[in-house]
Protein backbone atom coordinates (compact mmCIF):
# COMPACT_ATOMS: atom_id res chain seq x y z
CA UNK A 1 0.00 0.00 0.00
CA UNK A 2 1.48 3.35 -0.87
CA UNK A 3 2.13 5.77 1.91
CA UNK A 4 -0.58 8.20 0.93
CA UNK A 5 -3.31 5.66 0.75
CA UNK A 6 -2.15 4.11 4.01
CA UNK A 7 -2.43 7.44 5.77
CA UNK A 8 -5.78 8.12 4.21
CA UNK A 9 -6.98 4.77 5.38
CA UNK A 10 -5.93 5.56 8.92
CA UNK A 11 -7.73 8.85 8.83
CA UNK A 12 -10.83 7.16 7.51
CA UNK A 13 -10.71 4.80 10.42
CA UNK A 14 -10.43 7.66 12.85
CA UNK A 15 -13.13 9.77 11.31
CA UNK A 16 -15.41 6.82 11.48
CA UNK A 17 -15.20 6.60 15.23
CA UNK A 18 -17.49 8.72 17.32
CA UNK A 19 -15.16 9.79 20.08
CA UNK A 20 -11.43 9.48 20.50
CA UNK A 21 -11.84 7.02 23.28
CA UNK A 22 -13.30 4.56 20.86
CA UNK A 23 -10.18 4.58 18.70
CA UNK A 24 -8.76 1.32 17.58
CA UNK A 25 -5.33 0.29 18.71
CA UNK A 26 -2.74 1.96 16.49
CA UNK A 27 -2.00 -0.21 13.47
CA UNK A 28 1.34 -1.65 12.49
CA UNK A 29 3.54 0.69 10.48
CA UNK A 30 4.18 0.27 6.74
CA UNK A 31 7.41 -1.14 5.34
CA UNK A 32 10.30 1.22 5.77
CA UNK A 33 11.05 3.31 2.72
CA UNK A 34 14.52 4.48 3.64
CA UNK A 35 15.87 7.89 4.49
CA UNK A 36 16.11 11.04 2.47
CA UNK A 37 18.98 10.96 0.03
CA UNK A 38 20.43 14.19 -1.27
CA UNK A 39 19.20 14.79 -4.75
CA UNK A 40 21.59 15.32 -7.55
CA UNK A 41 25.06 14.09 -8.10
CA UNK A 42 28.03 16.14 -7.20
CA UNK A 43 29.70 16.45 -10.58
CA UNK A 44 32.16 18.96 -9.40
CA UNK A 45 33.79 16.60 -7.03
CA UNK A 46 34.82 18.99 -4.31
CA UNK A 47 33.37 17.17 -1.31
CA UNK A 48 31.27 14.13 -1.06
CA UNK A 49 27.62 14.77 -0.60
CA UNK A 50 27.53 13.67 2.99
CA UNK A 51 25.37 15.42 5.43
CA UNK A 52 27.38 18.44 6.42
CA UNK A 53 25.71 18.85 9.70
CA UNK A 54 26.26 15.28 10.77
CA UNK A 55 29.95 15.63 10.08
CA UNK A 56 30.04 18.73 12.22
CA UNK A 57 27.92 17.04 14.84
CA UNK A 58 30.36 14.17 15.09
CA UNK A 59 33.09 16.73 15.75
CA UNK A 60 31.07 18.74 18.23
CA UNK A 61 32.41 19.27 21.73
CA UNK A 62 28.95 18.54 23.08
CA UNK A 63 28.70 14.92 22.01
CA UNK A 64 29.04 12.41 24.82
CA UNK A 65 31.40 9.83 23.46
CA UNK A 66 30.44 6.75 25.39
CA UNK A 67 29.91 3.71 23.23
CA UNK A 68 28.16 1.79 25.94
CA UNK A 69 25.57 4.51 26.31
CA UNK A 70 24.97 5.20 22.63
CA UNK A 71 25.04 1.48 21.89
CA UNK A 72 22.33 0.96 24.47
CA UNK A 73 20.17 3.70 23.04
CA UNK A 74 20.51 2.10 19.65
CA UNK A 75 19.33 -1.18 21.10
CA UNK A 76 16.30 0.49 22.62
CA UNK A 77 15.49 2.19 19.34
CA UNK A 78 15.71 -1.17 17.60
CA UNK A 79 13.35 -2.68 20.11
CA UNK A 80 11.00 0.22 19.55
CA UNK A 81 10.89 0.56 15.78
CA UNK A 82 12.41 -2.62 14.44
CA UNK A 83 15.78 -3.37 12.85
CA UNK A 84 15.12 -1.96 9.38
CA UNK A 85 14.56 1.45 10.75
CA UNK A 86 17.02 1.50 13.55
CA UNK A 87 19.94 0.25 11.47
CA UNK A 88 19.57 3.22 9.18
CA UNK A 89 19.82 5.59 12.14
CA UNK A 90 22.85 6.97 13.90
CA UNK A 91 22.37 8.12 17.47
CA UNK A 92 24.36 10.83 19.19
CA UNK A 93 23.99 11.64 22.87
CA UNK A 94 24.43 15.35 23.57
CA UNK A 95 25.50 16.95 26.83
CA UNK A 96 22.50 19.24 26.93
CA UNK A 97 20.40 19.55 30.05
CA UNK A 98 16.94 19.94 28.57
CA UNK A 99 14.33 17.46 27.49
CA UNK A 100 14.74 16.96 23.79
CA UNK A 101 15.46 14.47 21.05
CA UNK A 102 15.72 15.35 17.40
CA UNK A 103 15.94 13.59 14.12
CA UNK A 104 17.28 14.75 10.78
CA UNK A 105 16.32 13.92 7.27
CA UNK A 106 19.07 11.45 6.73
CA UNK A 107 18.61 9.48 9.90
CA UNK A 108 20.77 11.31 12.41
CA UNK A 109 19.20 11.21 15.83
CA UNK A 110 20.34 13.38 18.72
CA UNK A 111 19.24 12.58 22.23
CA UNK A 112 19.85 15.18 24.93
CA UNK A 113 21.15 14.10 28.30
CA UNK A 114 18.26 16.02 29.88
CA UNK A 115 15.90 13.60 28.23
CA UNK A 116 17.77 10.57 29.53
CA UNK A 117 17.54 12.01 33.02
CA UNK A 118 13.75 12.21 32.78
CA UNK A 119 13.05 8.71 31.47
CA UNK A 120 12.20 6.14 34.12
CA UNK A 121 12.59 3.03 32.03
CA UNK A 122 13.20 1.64 28.56
CA UNK A 123 9.57 1.72 27.57
CA UNK A 124 9.37 5.45 28.19
CA UNK A 125 12.55 6.04 26.23
CA UNK A 126 11.25 3.85 23.44
CA UNK A 127 8.01 5.80 23.40
CA UNK A 128 9.85 9.06 22.87
CA UNK A 129 12.33 7.73 20.33
CA UNK A 130 9.56 5.94 18.52
CA UNK A 131 7.49 9.07 18.45
CA UNK A 132 10.41 11.06 17.07
CA UNK A 133 10.94 8.46 14.47
CA UNK A 134 7.30 8.40 13.58
CA UNK A 135 7.15 12.12 13.23
CA UNK A 136 10.08 12.06 10.96
CA UNK A 137 8.96 9.10 8.92
CA UNK A 138 5.53 10.42 8.30
CA UNK A 139 6.78 13.78 7.14
CA UNK A 140 7.54 12.60 3.67
CA UNK A 141 4.04 11.52 3.19
CA UNK A 142 2.76 14.54 4.99
CA UNK A 143 3.51 17.11 2.38
CA UNK A 144 1.74 15.11 -0.22
CA UNK A 145 -0.88 14.18 2.25
CA UNK A 146 -1.57 17.81 3.06
CA UNK A 147 -3.08 18.20 -0.35
CA UNK A 148 -5.25 15.20 0.08
CA UNK A 149 -6.40 15.58 3.64
CA UNK A 150 -9.99 15.92 4.40
CA UNK A 151 -9.66 18.87 6.69
CA UNK A 152 -11.63 17.25 9.43
CA UNK A 153 -10.33 17.92 12.86
CA UNK A 154 -8.34 15.10 14.22
CA UNK A 155 -7.44 14.94 17.81
CA UNK A 156 -3.76 15.43 18.14
CA UNK A 157 -1.86 14.59 21.22
CA UNK A 158 1.57 13.92 22.43
CA UNK A 159 3.01 17.08 20.96
CA UNK A 160 5.08 17.37 24.04
CA UNK A 161 6.92 14.24 23.07
CA UNK A 162 8.09 16.03 19.99
CA UNK A 163 9.46 18.91 21.95
CA UNK A 164 12.11 21.13 20.63
CA UNK A 165 15.10 22.33 22.55
CA UNK A 166 14.86 25.76 24.11
CA UNK A 167 15.89 28.80 22.22
CA UNK A 168 16.11 32.36 23.37
CA UNK A 169 13.45 33.48 20.93
CA UNK A 170 10.89 30.77 21.30
CA UNK A 171 11.34 30.67 25.04
CA UNK A 172 10.10 34.18 25.38
CA UNK A 173 7.03 33.33 23.37
CA UNK A 174 6.09 30.59 25.78
CA UNK A 175 7.18 32.24 28.95
CA UNK A 176 3.74 32.28 30.43
CA UNK A 177 3.57 28.55 30.06
CA UNK A 178 6.87 27.63 31.61
CA UNK A 179 6.98 24.96 28.99
CA UNK A 180 9.74 26.98 27.45
CA UNK A 181 12.07 25.70 30.06
CA UNK A 182 11.31 22.19 29.07
CA UNK A 183 11.47 22.45 25.38
CA UNK A 184 9.21 24.10 22.99
CA UNK A 185 6.45 22.51 21.12
CA UNK A 186 5.97 22.12 17.53
CA UNK A 187 2.89 23.78 16.31
CA UNK A 188 2.18 21.03 13.96
CA UNK A 189 -1.23 20.85 12.59
CA UNK A 190 -3.29 18.35 14.44
CA UNK A 191 -3.24 15.99 11.51
CA UNK A 192 0.52 15.90 11.42
CA UNK A 193 0.79 15.19 15.09
CA UNK A 194 -1.79 12.55 14.73
CA UNK A 195 0.07 10.71 12.01
CA UNK A 196 3.31 10.81 13.89
CA UNK A 197 1.75 9.55 17.03
CA UNK A 198 -0.07 6.79 15.31
CA UNK A 199 3.13 5.62 13.76
CA UNK A 200 4.94 5.93 17.05
CA UNK A 201 2.36 3.93 18.89
CA UNK A 202 2.18 1.57 15.99
CA UNK A 203 5.84 0.78 16.42
CA UNK A 204 5.44 0.27 20.11
CA UNK A 205 2.45 -1.96 19.72
CA UNK A 206 4.51 -4.15 17.49
CA UNK A 207 7.46 -4.06 19.80
CA UNK A 208 8.25 -5.96 22.91
CA UNK A 209 7.88 -2.91 25.12
CA UNK A 210 4.84 -1.54 26.90
CA UNK A 211 3.29 1.26 24.85
CA UNK A 212 1.44 2.54 27.92
CA UNK A 213 4.73 4.20 28.83
CA UNK A 214 3.98 6.94 26.30
CA UNK A 215 1.31 8.38 28.55
CA UNK A 216 3.62 8.23 31.57
CA UNK A 217 6.17 10.42 29.83
CA UNK A 218 3.47 12.96 29.23
CA UNK A 219 2.23 12.86 32.78
CA UNK A 220 5.71 13.22 34.23
CA UNK A 221 6.56 16.17 32.08
CA UNK A 222 3.36 17.96 32.94
CA UNK A 223 4.01 17.28 36.60
CA UNK A 224 7.47 18.72 36.34
CA UNK A 225 6.26 21.86 34.62
CA UNK A 226 3.63 22.40 37.28
CA UNK A 227 6.08 21.85 40.10
CA UNK A 228 8.48 24.29 38.53
CA UNK A 229 5.81 26.97 38.21
CA UNK A 230 4.54 26.51 41.74
CA UNK A 231 8.01 26.82 43.23
CA UNK A 232 8.49 30.07 41.36
CA UNK A 233 5.25 31.42 42.74
CA UNK A 234 3.67 31.36 39.33
CA UNK A 235 0.24 30.14 38.45
CA UNK A 236 -0.01 26.55 37.36
CA UNK A 237 -0.01 26.51 33.59
CA UNK A 238 -3.46 26.03 32.18
CA UNK A 239 -2.62 23.62 29.49
CA UNK A 240 -6.04 23.89 27.94
CA UNK A 241 -6.01 27.62 27.69
CA UNK A 242 -2.93 27.85 25.59
CA UNK A 243 -3.24 27.99 21.85
CA UNK A 244 -1.37 24.90 20.92
CA UNK A 245 -3.01 22.77 23.53
CA UNK A 246 -6.42 23.91 22.43
CA UNK A 247 -5.90 21.38 19.71
CA UNK A 248 -4.90 18.73 22.21
CA UNK A 249 -6.99 17.08 24.83
CA UNK A 250 -6.27 17.83 28.48
CA UNK A 251 -3.76 15.44 29.86
CA UNK A 252 -6.13 13.25 31.75
CA UNK A 253 -8.07 12.55 28.65
CA UNK A 254 -4.90 12.16 26.68
CA UNK A 255 -3.53 9.59 29.04
CA UNK A 256 -6.71 7.60 28.64
CA UNK A 257 -6.62 7.99 24.90
CA UNK A 258 -3.02 6.91 24.71
CA UNK A 259 -3.90 3.89 26.74
CA UNK A 260 -6.72 3.13 24.34
CA UNK A 261 -4.37 3.34 21.39
CA UNK A 262 -2.07 0.89 23.02
CA UNK A 263 -3.00 -2.60 22.05
CA UNK A 264 -4.83 -4.26 24.90
CA UNK A 265 -2.67 -7.27 25.30
CA UNK A 266 0.44 -5.19 25.68
CA UNK A 267 0.04 -3.94 29.20
CA UNK A 268 1.85 -6.85 30.74
CA UNK A 269 4.86 -6.27 28.58
CA UNK A 270 8.27 -5.29 29.70
CA UNK A 271 9.06 -1.80 30.91
CA UNK A 272 12.76 -2.45 31.06
CA UNK A 273 13.19 -0.40 34.21
CA UNK A 274 16.08 -2.36 35.58
CA UNK A 275 18.06 -2.44 32.35
CA UNK A 276 17.57 1.27 31.95
CA UNK A 277 18.57 2.08 35.51
CA UNK A 278 21.70 -0.02 35.33
CA UNK A 279 22.91 1.49 32.10
CA UNK A 280 22.27 5.05 33.21
CA UNK A 281 23.74 4.53 36.69
CA UNK A 282 27.17 5.73 35.65
CA UNK A 283 25.86 8.98 34.19
CA UNK A 284 23.03 9.69 36.57
CA UNK A 285 25.03 11.74 39.09
CA UNK A 286 26.34 13.92 36.26
CA UNK A 287 22.97 14.46 34.60
CA UNK A 288 21.37 15.19 37.96
CA UNK A 289 24.05 17.73 38.69
CA UNK A 290 23.49 19.35 35.28
CA UNK A 291 19.79 19.64 36.11
CA UNK A 292 20.25 21.06 39.60
CA UNK A 293 22.57 23.71 38.32
CA UNK A 294 19.83 25.08 36.08
CA UNK A 295 18.35 26.73 39.16
CA UNK A 296 14.85 25.33 38.66
CA UNK A 297 14.02 24.31 42.19
CA UNK A 298 10.53 22.91 41.66
CA UNK A 299 11.42 21.02 38.50
CA UNK A 300 14.52 19.48 40.03
CA UNK A 301 12.66 18.43 43.20
CA UNK A 302 10.06 16.75 41.05
CA UNK A 303 12.62 14.87 38.99
CA UNK A 304 14.48 13.67 42.07
CA UNK A 305 11.28 12.56 43.77
CA UNK A 306 10.25 10.71 40.64
CA UNK A 307 13.53 8.87 40.44
CA UNK A 308 13.18 8.06 44.13
CA UNK A 309 9.96 6.18 43.53
CA UNK A 310 12.13 3.18 42.87
CA UNK A 311 13.91 3.80 46.15
CA UNK A 312 16.12 6.50 47.58
CA UNK A 313 19.82 6.07 46.92
CA UNK A 314 22.86 7.92 48.18
CA UNK A 315 23.09 9.69 44.83
CA UNK A 316 19.51 10.92 45.05
CA UNK A 317 19.84 12.12 48.65
CA UNK A 318 23.05 13.90 47.76
CA UNK A 319 21.40 15.54 44.78
CA UNK A 320 18.58 16.76 46.98
CA UNK A 321 21.13 18.09 49.42
CA UNK A 322 22.86 20.01 46.63
CA UNK A 323 19.55 21.42 45.49
CA UNK A 324 18.70 22.77 48.92
CA UNK A 325 22.19 23.98 49.70
CA UNK A 326 22.24 25.92 46.44
CA UNK A 327 19.03 27.75 47.21
CA UNK A 328 20.56 28.23 50.62
CA UNK A 329 18.12 29.98 52.90
CA UNK A 330 18.36 28.91 56.53
CA UNK A 331 15.48 26.44 56.41
CA UNK A 332 16.94 24.93 53.25
CA UNK A 333 20.29 24.45 54.91
CA UNK A 334 18.75 22.53 57.79
CA UNK A 335 17.07 20.23 55.29
CA UNK A 336 20.30 19.93 53.32
CA UNK A 337 22.10 18.69 56.44
CA UNK A 338 19.48 15.98 56.76
CA UNK A 339 19.65 14.97 53.12
CA UNK A 340 23.42 14.76 52.99
CA UNK A 341 23.34 12.73 56.21
CA UNK A 342 20.88 10.35 54.62
CA UNK A 343 23.22 9.94 51.67
CA UNK A 344 26.14 9.20 53.96
CA UNK A 345 24.09 6.68 55.90
CA UNK A 346 23.58 4.78 52.69
CA UNK A 347 27.11 5.22 51.39
CA UNK A 348 29.81 6.58 53.63
CA UNK A 349 32.30 6.65 50.78
CA UNK A 350 30.39 9.31 48.85
CA UNK A 351 32.91 12.10 49.26
CA UNK A 352 30.79 14.91 47.87
CA UNK A 353 28.08 14.19 50.40
CA UNK A 354 30.57 14.84 53.18
CA UNK A 355 31.57 18.05 51.46
CA UNK A 356 27.97 19.20 51.14
CA UNK A 357 27.27 18.25 54.72
CA UNK A 358 30.32 20.12 55.96
CA UNK A 359 29.49 23.28 54.06
CA UNK A 360 25.86 23.20 55.12
CA UNK A 361 26.83 22.77 58.78
CA UNK A 362 29.18 25.74 58.51
CA UNK A 363 26.37 27.82 57.11
CA UNK A 364 24.02 26.94 59.93
CA UNK A 365 26.63 27.91 62.47
CA UNK A 366 27.87 24.45 63.40
CA UNK A 367 31.51 24.91 62.61
CA UNK A 368 32.93 22.03 64.57
CA UNK A 369 30.62 19.41 63.13
CA UNK A 370 31.19 21.04 59.75
CA UNK A 371 34.93 20.71 60.07
CA UNK A 372 34.58 17.04 60.93
CA UNK A 373 32.59 16.41 57.78
CA UNK A 374 35.03 18.37 55.63
CA UNK A 375 37.94 16.48 57.11
CA UNK A 376 36.23 13.25 56.11
CA UNK A 377 35.73 14.65 52.62
CA UNK A 378 39.44 15.35 52.32
CA UNK A 379 40.25 11.89 53.59
CA UNK A 380 38.12 10.38 50.85
CA UNK A 381 39.10 12.78 48.08
CA UNK A 382 42.50 14.28 48.83
CA UNK A 383 43.06 15.27 45.19
CA UNK A 384 39.79 17.01 44.59
CA UNK A 385 40.02 20.31 42.72
CA UNK A 386 39.11 22.34 45.81
CA UNK A 387 41.09 20.37 48.38
CA UNK A 388 43.39 23.26 49.26
CA UNK A 389 40.49 25.60 49.74
CA UNK A 390 38.65 23.17 51.97
CA UNK A 391 41.83 22.56 53.92
CA UNK A 392 41.86 26.24 54.85
CA UNK A 393 38.53 25.79 56.57
CA UNK A 394 39.84 23.16 58.94
CA UNK A 395 41.56 23.98 62.20
CA UNK A 396 45.08 24.89 61.15
CA UNK A 397 47.86 23.03 62.84
CA UNK A 398 50.04 25.35 64.80
CA UNK A 399 53.73 25.10 63.97
CA UNK A 400 55.77 23.36 66.57
Amino acid at each position, binding site marked *: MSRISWLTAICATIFASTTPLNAEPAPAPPPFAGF*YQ*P*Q*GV*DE*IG*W*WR*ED*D*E*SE*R*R*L*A*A*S*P*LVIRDEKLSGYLKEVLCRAVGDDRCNATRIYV*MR*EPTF*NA*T*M*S*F*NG*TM*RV*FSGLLLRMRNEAELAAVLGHEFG*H*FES*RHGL*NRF*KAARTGTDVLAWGALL*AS*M*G*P*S*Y*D*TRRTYQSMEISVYG*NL*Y*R*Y*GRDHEREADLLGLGYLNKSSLAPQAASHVWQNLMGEIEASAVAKGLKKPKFNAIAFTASHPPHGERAAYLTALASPDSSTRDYGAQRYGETLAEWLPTFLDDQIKLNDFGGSEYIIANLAKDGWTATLWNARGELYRTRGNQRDLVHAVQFYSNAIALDDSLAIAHRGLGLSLFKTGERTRGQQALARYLELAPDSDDAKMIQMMLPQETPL
Partner: protein
Amino acid sequence: MKQGFELEANSGKRILVFRPSVSVGSQSTGGMFEPNAEWTETAKSNIQVALTDLQARLGNEVIVAPEAYGEDALVVEEHMALFAAVSQAVIDYQFFVGNRLPTKKRDNKADVFDWSLGDGVSDLPGADQADYGLFIFNKDAYGSTGRKILQVVALLGPGVAVKSGEHVGYAGLIDLRTGDLLWLNADAAMGGDVREVDGSEKRVRQLLEDFPGSDIGEE
Protein backbone atom coordinates in the same frame (compact mmCIF):
# COMPACT_ATOMS: atom_id res chain seq x y z
CA MET B 1 42.82 43.28 4.83
CA LYS B 2 46.08 42.89 6.60
CA GLN B 3 48.58 45.57 5.89
CA GLY B 4 51.09 44.78 3.22
CA PHE B 5 49.18 41.78 2.00
CA GLU B 6 48.83 41.17 -1.65
CA LEU B 7 47.95 38.07 -3.47
CA GLU B 8 48.65 38.21 -7.09
CA ALA B 9 46.84 36.15 -9.58
CA ASN B 10 48.88 33.28 -10.83
CA SER B 11 51.36 33.88 -8.08
CA GLY B 12 51.82 30.22 -7.52
CA LYS B 13 50.54 30.37 -3.95
CA ARG B 14 48.42 27.47 -2.88
CA ILE B 15 45.17 27.98 -1.11
CA LEU B 16 43.67 25.29 1.07
CA VAL B 17 39.92 25.46 1.15
CA PHE B 18 38.32 24.04 4.24
CA ARG B 19 34.99 22.33 3.96
CA PRO B 20 32.67 25.31 4.09
CA SER B 21 30.56 25.47 7.12
CA VAL B 22 27.21 25.93 5.48
CA SER B 23 24.04 25.66 7.35
CA VAL B 24 20.77 26.82 6.03
CA GLY B 25 17.88 27.12 8.35
CA SER B 26 19.04 24.89 11.11
CA GLN B 27 21.93 24.42 13.41
CA SER B 28 24.17 21.47 13.74
CA THR B 29 23.21 20.81 17.30
CA GLY B 30 19.90 21.00 19.00
CA GLY B 31 17.95 21.36 15.83
CA MET B 32 14.71 19.51 15.67
CA PHE B 33 14.77 17.54 12.47
CA GLU B 34 16.47 19.39 9.70
CA PRO B 35 13.86 19.78 7.09
CA ASN B 36 16.20 22.11 5.36
CA ALA B 37 18.70 19.40 4.65
CA GLU B 38 17.43 19.73 1.13
CA TRP B 39 18.09 23.41 1.16
CA THR B 40 21.49 22.91 2.66
CA GLU B 41 22.45 20.37 0.04
CA THR B 42 21.41 22.74 -2.69
CA ALA B 43 23.21 25.62 -1.08
CA LYS B 44 26.36 23.60 -0.68
CA SER B 45 26.51 22.45 -4.24
CA ASN B 46 25.83 25.95 -5.43
CA ILE B 47 28.63 27.30 -3.33
CA GLN B 48 30.89 24.62 -4.69
CA VAL B 49 30.10 25.72 -8.20
CA ALA B 50 30.97 29.26 -7.31
CA LEU B 51 34.24 28.19 -5.73
CA THR B 52 35.25 26.30 -8.83
CA ASP B 53 34.62 29.50 -10.66
CA LEU B 54 36.86 31.29 -8.25
CA GLN B 55 39.63 28.84 -8.84
CA ALA B 56 39.42 29.40 -12.55
CA ARG B 57 39.55 33.15 -12.17
CA LEU B 58 42.31 33.31 -9.66
CA GLY B 59 44.71 31.04 -11.33
CA ASN B 60 46.02 30.16 -7.92
CA GLU B 61 46.08 26.58 -7.02
CA VAL B 62 43.13 25.78 -4.84
CA ILE B 63 43.35 22.58 -2.87
CA VAL B 64 40.53 20.90 -1.06
CA ALA B 65 41.27 20.20 2.58
CA PRO B 66 41.44 16.46 3.17
CA GLU B 67 38.78 14.81 5.28
CA ALA B 68 39.51 14.99 8.96
CA TYR B 69 38.61 12.18 11.31
CA GLY B 70 38.51 11.66 15.04
CA GLU B 71 40.64 14.09 17.02
CA ASP B 72 41.61 15.99 13.90
CA ALA B 73 37.98 16.58 13.09
CA LEU B 74 37.41 18.04 16.53
CA VAL B 75 40.31 20.43 16.06
CA VAL B 76 39.15 21.55 12.63
CA GLU B 77 35.69 22.15 14.03
CA GLU B 78 37.06 24.20 16.88
CA HIS B 79 39.04 26.32 14.43
CA MET B 80 35.93 26.89 12.39
CA ALA B 81 34.03 27.99 15.49
CA LEU B 82 36.93 30.29 16.40
CA PHE B 83 36.97 31.67 12.88
CA ALA B 84 33.30 32.58 13.25
CA ALA B 85 33.98 34.28 16.59
CA VAL B 86 36.96 36.22 15.23
CA SER B 87 34.99 37.28 12.17
CA GLN B 88 32.15 38.48 14.34
CA ALA B 89 34.59 40.45 16.48
CA VAL B 90 36.11 42.03 13.39
CA ILE B 91 32.67 43.08 12.20
CA ASP B 92 31.55 44.34 15.59
CA TYR B 93 34.68 46.13 16.58
CA GLN B 94 36.63 47.11 13.52
CA PHE B 95 34.25 47.29 10.61
CA PHE B 96 31.39 49.07 12.31
CA VAL B 97 32.47 52.64 12.56
CA GLY B 98 30.28 53.62 15.48
CA ASN B 99 31.30 50.62 17.52
CA ARG B 100 35.04 50.49 17.19
CA LEU B 101 37.15 49.55 20.13
CA PRO B 102 39.49 52.42 20.88
CA THR B 103 42.59 50.27 20.53
CA LYS B 104 41.35 49.09 17.14
CA LYS B 105 40.60 52.65 16.09
CA ARG B 106 44.22 53.41 16.53
CA ASP B 107 45.05 50.33 14.53
CA ASN B 108 42.81 51.54 11.76
CA LYS B 109 44.59 54.86 11.67
CA ALA B 110 47.92 53.14 11.42
CA ASP B 111 46.43 50.81 8.85
CA VAL B 112 47.00 47.85 11.09
CA PHE B 113 44.76 44.82 10.85
CA ASP B 114 45.80 42.46 13.54
CA TRP B 115 43.62 39.42 13.98
CA SER B 116 44.57 35.81 14.20
CA LEU B 117 43.41 32.24 14.69
CA GLY B 118 46.68 31.31 16.28
CA ASP B 119 49.47 29.20 14.85
CA GLY B 120 47.63 25.97 15.61
CA VAL B 121 46.34 26.26 12.05
CA SER B 122 49.64 24.96 10.81
CA ASP B 123 48.72 21.57 12.21
CA LEU B 124 45.38 21.31 10.47
CA PRO B 125 45.10 18.47 7.95
CA GLY B 126 46.39 19.66 4.62
CA ALA B 127 48.04 22.78 6.01
CA ASP B 128 51.49 21.52 5.19
CA GLN B 129 50.62 21.57 1.53
CA ALA B 130 49.44 25.13 1.21
CA ASP B 131 50.29 28.69 2.04
CA TYR B 132 46.88 30.09 2.81
CA GLY B 133 43.66 28.69 4.12
CA LEU B 134 40.24 29.82 3.01
CA PHE B 135 37.53 29.57 5.62
CA ILE B 136 33.94 29.99 4.62
CA PHE B 137 31.22 30.21 7.17
CA ASN B 138 27.69 30.75 6.10
CA LYS B 139 24.79 30.64 8.41
CA ASP B 140 21.25 31.49 7.57
CA ALA B 141 19.55 30.98 10.84
CA TYR B 142 15.89 31.49 10.46
CA GLY B 143 15.40 32.41 14.05
CA SER B 144 18.43 31.73 16.07
CA THR B 145 21.91 30.38 16.44
CA GLY B 146 23.81 27.65 18.14
CA ARG B 147 21.44 25.25 19.75
CA LYS B 148 18.44 27.16 18.74
CA ILE B 149 15.70 26.02 16.62
CA LEU B 150 14.12 26.95 13.40
CA GLN B 151 11.04 28.98 13.41
CA VAL B 152 8.37 26.39 13.54
CA VAL B 153 6.66 27.70 10.49
CA ALA B 154 9.61 26.62 8.38
CA LEU B 155 8.77 23.03 9.09
CA LEU B 156 5.47 23.16 7.38
CA GLY B 157 7.33 22.74 4.15
CA PRO B 158 9.10 24.61 1.43
CA GLY B 159 7.29 27.52 -0.03
CA VAL B 160 6.12 28.74 3.36
CA ALA B 161 7.49 32.16 4.14
CA VAL B 162 10.15 31.88 6.78
CA LYS B 163 10.76 34.74 9.13
CA SER B 164 14.35 35.71 8.74
CA GLY B 165 16.53 35.71 11.76
CA GLU B 166 20.20 35.97 11.29
CA HIS B 167 22.13 35.88 8.10
CA VAL B 168 25.81 35.79 8.62
CA GLY B 169 28.48 34.97 6.15
CA TYR B 170 32.21 35.21 6.48
CA ALA B 171 34.98 34.29 4.11
CA GLY B 172 38.48 34.64 5.41
CA LEU B 173 41.96 33.98 4.21
CA ILE B 174 44.40 32.78 6.84
CA ASP B 175 48.15 32.54 6.73
CA LEU B 176 48.70 28.88 7.44
CA ARG B 177 51.99 29.41 9.19
CA THR B 178 50.98 32.08 11.67
CA GLY B 179 47.21 31.92 11.74
CA ASP B 180 47.01 35.61 10.90
CA LEU B 181 43.85 36.72 9.24
CA LEU B 182 44.98 38.24 5.98
CA TRP B 183 41.67 39.12 4.50
CA LEU B 184 38.11 38.96 5.65
CA ASN B 185 34.88 39.62 3.94
CA ALA B 186 31.90 39.54 6.13
CA ASP B 187 28.39 40.62 5.76
CA ALA B 188 25.86 40.28 8.47
CA ALA B 189 23.00 41.20 6.25
CA MET B 190 23.65 39.45 3.03
CA GLY B 191 21.31 39.25 0.19
CA GLY B 192 20.61 36.24 -1.87
CA ASP B 193 18.82 33.14 -0.85
CA VAL B 194 21.41 30.43 -0.93
CA ARG B 195 18.77 27.90 -1.71
CA GLU B 196 18.51 29.25 -5.22
CA VAL B 197 21.37 29.02 -7.65
CA ASP B 198 21.35 32.72 -8.28
CA GLY B 199 21.12 33.37 -4.59
CA SER B 200 24.08 31.17 -3.90
CA GLU B 201 26.15 32.75 -6.56
CA LYS B 202 25.28 36.14 -5.25
CA ARG B 203 26.15 35.10 -1.76
CA VAL B 204 29.47 33.60 -2.71
CA ARG B 205 30.19 36.53 -4.94
CA GLN B 206 29.57 38.85 -2.05
CA LEU B 207 31.73 36.80 0.21
CA LEU B 208 34.54 36.66 -2.29
CA GLU B 209 34.34 40.23 -3.45
CA ASP B 210 37.67 41.87 -3.37
CA PHE B 211 39.33 38.54 -2.95
CA PRO B 212 42.93 39.46 -3.34
CA GLY B 213 44.12 39.09 -6.87
CA SER B 214 40.74 38.39 -8.32
CA ASP B 215 38.45 40.37 -10.50
CA ILE B 216 35.31 38.92 -8.99
CA GLY B 217 34.02 42.07 -7.40
CA GLU B 218 34.19 43.99 -10.58
CA GLU B 219 31.55 42.16 -12.52
